[in-house]
């Protein structure tokens, strides 16, 4: 499979409209505007496209809900708040292939009946902001955005909204709050954004990578697209691999590529001949896996059967020099910092987990601390407002599940045993 989403990114001018058009760009939009909106949603359904932000929700279903709601106007929001630690898969699209996203959003906007779109871009990507704004300007100039796109009477307006450094805004209702000019604190659901979203109107929130699939689905049709990768959740997937591998980076591969193949074949195995100790397969919130559990297809359907989740496809590979207590502690420091403070189990729970892990790591852990961690985590799971609290608690549960002896040794020795 050649690159679809990351096509031409080695070309230094890949972000330019003329270069994008040279390689067939905006043909998908041209085709889509000749179709009925409902026919586009049907193609997306046939394609079996699932949201690439982490949850893997069927895209056509979300769209159907929003398009069926009679309220007007509707909004299409692109979630470009890529903040899950370990994730850097959307950045190459945003910086090197912005027109594939703009084209994908325009197709989606037309299918949904949304006339306004925003790209909610994380504040930490200042270069992407300038690149996107330039690409949007080019698209307006070439009548690919505006009130009468390609002379077909279709209206779609697009703007970039820059976030300001809050992981929680990757959660769709927090993202909407932030777009509306508020603190990024999640809303209770229902109502769901597809009915009451941005500015109280029907709103679809889709990830950058998800929306960037649209031009290709239009080009080859849903049925042909569904033949790529896993039958249960087809398409190309951008995996991003960091940590102790020989060749870290982004790899666009068929959805469902086995984790072992990603690490050993594509990334050249463990750097410097070290030994694999642990893999976080889908960004820091997803359950850690030990080395004997990496023979699993990396997709939304199969990963849960193997004890983890695809998440964002952000693979963090750790060799045997890495202390699991330290990684778990660092992860909880992150969750404590990013908890929005709205609900008690998450606000308090993340702080207590971080504090207990900190003392274990410092060699000041008490007997019973590991069970205490599990007790706190157990009291968070399923009791928080949004998945941030669940993620934090499950990180602790899974590190202990797979590496309990290492935690116990920290408590017993009052020191870190790793590498000694």
């Amino acid at each position, binding site marked *: 499979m050649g690159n679809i989403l990351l096509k031409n990114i080695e070309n230094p001018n890949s972000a330019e409209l003329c270069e994008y058009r040279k390689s067939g760009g905006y043909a998908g939009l041209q085709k889509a505007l000749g179709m009925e909106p409902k026919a586009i949603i049907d193609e997306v359904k046939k394609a079996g496209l699932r949201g690439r932000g982490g949850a893997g929700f069927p895209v056509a279903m979300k769209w159907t809900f929003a398009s069926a709601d009679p309220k007007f106007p509707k909004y299409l929001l692109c979630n470009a708040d890529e903040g899950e*630690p370990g994730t*850097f898969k959307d950045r190459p699209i945003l910086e090197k292939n912005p027109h594939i996203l703009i084209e994908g959003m325009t197709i989606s906007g037309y299918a949904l009946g949304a006339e306004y779109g925003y790209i909610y871009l994380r504040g930490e990507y200042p270069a992407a902001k300038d690149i996107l704004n330039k690409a949007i300007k080019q698209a307006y100039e070439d009548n690919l955005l505006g009130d009468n796109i390609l002379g077909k009477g279709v209206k779609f307006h697009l703007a970039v909204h820059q976030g300001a*450094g809050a992981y929680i805004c990757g959660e769709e209702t927090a993202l909407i709050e*932030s777009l509306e000019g508020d*603190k990024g604190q999640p809303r209770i659901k229902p109502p769901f954004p597809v009915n009451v979203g941005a500015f109280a109107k029907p709103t679809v929130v889709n990830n950058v990578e998800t929306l960037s699939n649209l031009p290709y689905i239009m080009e080859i049709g849903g049925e042909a697209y569904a033949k790529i990768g896993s039958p249960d959740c087809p398409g190309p997937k951008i995996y991003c691999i960091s940590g102790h591998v020989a060749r870290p980076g982004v790899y666009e591969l068929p959805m469902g590529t086995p984790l072992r193949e990603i690490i050993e074949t594509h990334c050249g195995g463990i750097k410097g001949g070290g030994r694999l100790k642990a893999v976080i397969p889908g960004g820091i919130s997803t359950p850690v896996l030990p080395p004997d559990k990496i023979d699993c297809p990396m997709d939304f359907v199969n990963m849960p059967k193997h004890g983890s989740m695809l998440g964002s496809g952000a693979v963090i590979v750790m060799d045997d020099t890495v202390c699991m207590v330290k990684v778990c502690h660092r992860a909880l420091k992150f969750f404590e910092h990013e908890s929005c403070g709205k609900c008690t189990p998450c606000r308090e729970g993340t702080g207590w987990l971080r504090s207990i892990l900190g003392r274990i790591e410092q060699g000041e852990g008490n007997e019973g601390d590991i069970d205490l961690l599990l007790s706190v985590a157990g009291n968070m799971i399923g009791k928080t407002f949004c998945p941030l609290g669940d993620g934090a608690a499950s990180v602790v549960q899974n590190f202990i599940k797979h590496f309990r002896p290492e935690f116990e040794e920290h408590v017993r020795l009052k020191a870190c045993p790793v590498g000694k």
Partner: protein
Amino acid sequence: MITFSQTTIKEIEEIRRKYPTSRAALLPALYVAQREFGWLSPEAYTAVSDLLGVPEAIARGVGTFYAMYRNKPLGRHVVQLCTNVSCMILGAERLVDFLKNKYGLEPGGTTADGRFSLVIMECIGACGTAPAMLVNDDFYENLTEKYIDEILEKYR
């Protein structure tokens, strides 16, 4: 009392037109205020609040919720070093120590000459080229002590 320049007022009015409500222009307007005044002083909040017709308490609530708004004056150049897991396992903590020992730069602190401030970041999306940092708006990746020396030399 500080006020926005006429050019900035125009800029914010243009931003305002991108949204169906004034309130939605709050995040971008705070960025503009931060750029214009260097940080979000109480007066800066008043200026934003007056211009958008958003209550000052709301503006402050938002400005203190998000990590990238500066609620105190910072140095001329802001070093934003990631220490999250992918950067940590490839040596980011050593770089924090290096900045402290060589430049007197503590996390959250500013050098005595006001040249640099250091902000510890939570994942900046450069995990495949870790450890990484931003200096102001510029990305730097695959950092080493020697490379940091070379980079910081460029920022006077």
